[in-house]
């Protein structure tokens, strides 16, 4: 009898040698088409818009107010005294601290006013100093009262912190430009 030779079955295989290439191609596509950078910056909430005709002058005691004026040459006036930008922080820290225990309506208001020709970078540097002062005071308060960093506080503590040291930065109403 003739032996029928069984045909040897080839092992079924999917060719995988090009899989790496395909994966690299996909990877490249995602690298090109996406952005990684996180958005960082100085957050602020603008005041509500009031038309100039309805604006009222609200008297604020001088004690509450820290008026920050920046002119076009980059000179800074804090409460009518000329200081340099890196000094803003120290000046404000002392004033914020003295008002921690005061009621909400007596907290410090920092008002920032600039000229139309002031350099944006200088404005950001000044704002950075103001924010930095607030963050410093908050950090110290959190460390003293709870022995924690600000980022580690729970919700009620965060709430108390925000209540005690609210960040009130007011962007002054721009003056009407004569045309």
């Amino acid at each position: 009898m003739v032996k029928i030779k069984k045909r040897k079955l080839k092992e079924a295989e999917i060719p995988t040698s090009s899989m790496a290439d395909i994966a690299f191609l996909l990877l490249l596509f995602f690298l090109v088409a996406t952005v990684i950078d996180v958005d960082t910056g100085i957050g602020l909430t603008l005041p509500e818009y009031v038309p100039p005709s309805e604006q009222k002058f609200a008297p604020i005691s001088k004690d509450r107010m820290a008026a920050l004026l920046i002119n076009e040459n980059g000179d800074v006036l804090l409460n009518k005294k000329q200081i340099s930008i890196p000094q803003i922080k120290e000046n404000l820290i002392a004033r914020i601290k003295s008002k921690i225990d005061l009621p909400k309506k007596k907290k410090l208001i920092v008002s920032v006013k600039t000229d139309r020709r002031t350099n944006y970078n200088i404005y950001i540097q000044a704002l950075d100093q103001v924010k930095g002062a607030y963050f410093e005071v908050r950090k110290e308060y959190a460390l003293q009262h709870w022995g924690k960093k600000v980022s580690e506080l729970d919700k009620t503590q965060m709430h108390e912190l925000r209540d005690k040291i609210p960040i009130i930065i007011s962007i002054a109403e721009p003056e009407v430009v004569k045309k």
Partner: protein
Amino acid sequence: MKFQKKRASTKQEIPTASMPDIVFMLLLFFMVSTTLREVDVMVQFKLPEAKAIEKIENKRLISYIWVGNDGRIQLNDNIVQIKDIQKIMYKKRQELPNVIVSLRIDKNAQMGIVTDIQQELRKADARRINYSARLKE
């Protein structure tokens, strides 16, 4: 006498079988940790640097305004005039009530243009803003 060269008996090959797995892992990492680029920036700008900055947690809430070093303003995906900002932002705010406007302004810009944009944003009632800045070393 003939010297026999010593050779390692193992195969001299780098195993590449797991390469796709590694690359797929990388791919997954990038897919998860990034967001798709949505707009082309048409203005040139250099961000200012600051220390006391914070992250914006929710990227989907952000709407961007760029101001280039030539004073052109780009809102989301096209160049606009200052007076158009109010209308566009007002529409945006109706879709997305707690929109954050990220202002990416060139550091050599003048405050006049910034103030004008802020006024428009106030009129549109989009009052949460963020001056985009890079971390100063």
